[in-house]
């Protein structure tokens, strides 16, 4: 379930997990109806963080 206020956890172990993080975050961003630009910013930020793990 993705939606406002929901919480998801995801372990980041491999490079492939970065892709899954981005998909998860994009799903949430779409669920709360962020604009495409804001979705892109949010997913980019999530990708940066995930890559740093």
């Amino acid at each position, binding site marked *: 379930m993705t939606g406002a206020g929901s919480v998801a956890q995801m372990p980041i172990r491999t*490079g*492939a997990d*970065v*892709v899954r993080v*981005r998909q998860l975050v*994009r799903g949430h961003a779409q669920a709360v109806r962020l604009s*495409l*630009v804001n*979705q*892109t*910013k949010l*997913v*980019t930020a999530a*990708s*940066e963080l995930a*890559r740093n793990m």
Partner: protein
Amino acid sequence: MERVLILQLGNALLVSIQLYLQDDSVVALQEDLAERIVAIGAAGVVIDISAVEIVDSFTGRMFASIAALSRVLDAETVVVGMRPAVAITLVELGLPLEGVHTALDLEKGLAILDRLAARRGIEDAHPDADAEQPVTPSAPAP
């Protein structure tokens, strides 16, 4: 590991990024590109990112390092097809994409490579001719 296909278009090389590339794929792409640039004496590399939904700093660094590598091998790099949302995010991130030219689409990217090649030819012949030969976007490709 995803291996990115490199296509040849005249004296340019075309790379279309379809997936999020892992580190090993990026290294392989750089090695393949370096070999192909030297093999055909490429004037430039066009990186098509029209399928790319986000560009983070790692991807940005990949473009910059491909551009640096290409330049050492006497080739220029043009990134084409950037989505508007990606452009806005890059600017707000403060990610400059150093050494990389950009164009809206493949056709315009190839035109930039032609112009740059012509300009370098002029500079080689007349090292101080740069100011006398301004290159404008409307200049026809030779």
